């Protein structure tokens, strides 16, 4: 069974310059793993995610990435992802090359990746300027009807990182609730790291439930609360207050760096990050 600490998992399996997808669509975003990547000061990553959300705002702001593939890059329900925006607009802390898609295009790219096809097909990007700024969006002719369809290249990350509800003693992982494109991102990757809320003896998977079997998982780390400030259905809900607070924290470079220093660089792991937040009066 591939159980290890998150620190060891990131140390062993995430390297500078790799293409890394931390997926989770609003739900089950692997924040603790993202912060561990920051803590270990990885650089020049090609970060891939449909919705960069606060997790990539933190990682991009911390200087981990030089490339970003995404389809919607804001603070959901709040506004801008200020760190991502400043990297794109002003190249701070490092220039960030962007590969921009629509959700449907990213989804098709992950599906192709999981299927080990070199491209995905969709009726997509109709009439938009996205193909002009992303030359990877191309087209193909249907061999039956002659019509043109859009293609996207398969997305096959070096590493995909997910957060899930639980793993069993063998390392099988259960995801439940809104699952986004996590399964596709997981199966498209060369390596798969998963943090979970808890390790249980038996998963008690409901029939047709979503499981990633142990033999496709490179490493499992037990990190309770590892999706905070996003949520883990059945464990805790989304910390909307933090999402709102992030708007202020992240708007200013200095304040952002201060936050990063206190809660990421100065803590040894996620548990200590949470302890520090609590010590600073944050109700969590």
């Amino acid at each position: 069974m591939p159980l290890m600490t998150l620190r060891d998992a990131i140390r062993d399996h995430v390297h500078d310059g790799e293409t890394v997808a931390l997926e989770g669509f609003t739900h089950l975003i692997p924040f603790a793993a993202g912060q561990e990547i920051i803590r270990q000061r990885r650089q020049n990553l090609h970060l891939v995610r449909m919705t960069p959300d606060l997790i990539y705002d933190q990682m991009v702001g911390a200087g981990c990435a030089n490339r970003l593939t995404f389809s919607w890059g804001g603070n959901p329900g709040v506004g801008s992802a200020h760190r991502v925006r400043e990297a794109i607009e002003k190249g701070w802390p490092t220039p960030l090359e962007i590969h921009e898609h629509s959700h449907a295009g990213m989804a098709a790219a992950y599906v192709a990746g999981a299927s080990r096809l070199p491209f995905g097909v969709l009726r997509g990007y109709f009439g938009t300027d996205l193909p002009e700024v992303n030359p990877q969006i191309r087209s193909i002719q249907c061999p039956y009807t002659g019509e043109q369809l859009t293609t996207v290249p398969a997305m096959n990350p070096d590493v995909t990182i997910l957060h899930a509800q639980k793993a069993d003693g063998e390392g099988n992982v259960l995801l439940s609730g809104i699952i986004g494109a996590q399964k596709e991102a997981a199966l498209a990757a060369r390596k798969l790291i998963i943090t979970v809320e808890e390790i249980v003896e038996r998963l008690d998977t409901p029939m047709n439930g979503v499981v990633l079997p142990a033999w496709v998982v490179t490493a499992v780390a037990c990190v309770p609360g590892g999706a905070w400030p996003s949520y883990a259905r059945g464990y805790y809900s989304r910390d909307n207050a933090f999402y709102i607070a992030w708007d202020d924290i992240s708007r200013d470079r200095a304040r952002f760096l201060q936050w990063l220093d206190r809660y990421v660089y100065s803590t040894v792991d996620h548990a200590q990050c949470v302890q520090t937040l609590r010590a600073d009066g944050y109700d969590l």
Partner: protein
Amino acid sequence: MSGMDWTPDEMMTVTAARLLWDKAVCFVGIGLPSAAANLARQSHAPDIVLIYESGTIGTRPNVLPLSIGDGELADTAVCVVPLPEIFSYWLQSGRIDVGFLGAAQIDRYGNLNSTVVGRYDAPKTRLPGAGGAPEIATHAKQVFVVIKQSPRSFVAHLDFISSAGFLAGDGERSRRRAPGRGPQAIISDYGVLKPDPVTDEFVLVARYEHVTTESAIAACGWPLKTSEFVEVIAPPTAQELLALRELHARTKAAHAAAVKLPI
């Protein structure tokens, strides 16, 4: 605007809700579209089918979600499917009656920009991006756009087309065989705009009681045409306002609860 006992947001939400019908299948975005769709469901359209791009189908949230993937959406859905399936089997397949979009900017043909102001490679303002919108705009049988009106948001020329409306108008969209009929209504904080059936240009067809047609024209970045007779939209009924405010009150109460991490 004195004497109004509702806000412009409430007026927009109620107006958008009224455009929806029972059993319509709606692909809903977060914010005002979600509020409008759920208001419709809790008033005149109890069997409306709400789909969120996070994979929740037939969801009946008791409180409004703050994100597109709130737990409430999953817990009250008829089913929860993977996101790639939402875009292929449910949207691209042509099963959506109404797509509900917002945007930072719109032009007279209902094209939307939610990507960038200024040059793409040297942005003045970098916006969040297109998300699910390009394919919603393509495939939904019709699209409603909810957007506040000002010369900066209703622009003569878009810096970037993130989602297609009628493109350059005069039938270009249908000539290029887009699957859906495109934007059929813009709900702004001045009233409702609908496309001219020949030129595809959006014209003001209805205004709220508390604004004038002239003020709507002044708040538009292109020379806004109006229909011969601009209807006046009835203000929110007491019932509509009550339902909407209860929805918001329940939402506020639900989301005020502190998050407790199990560590």
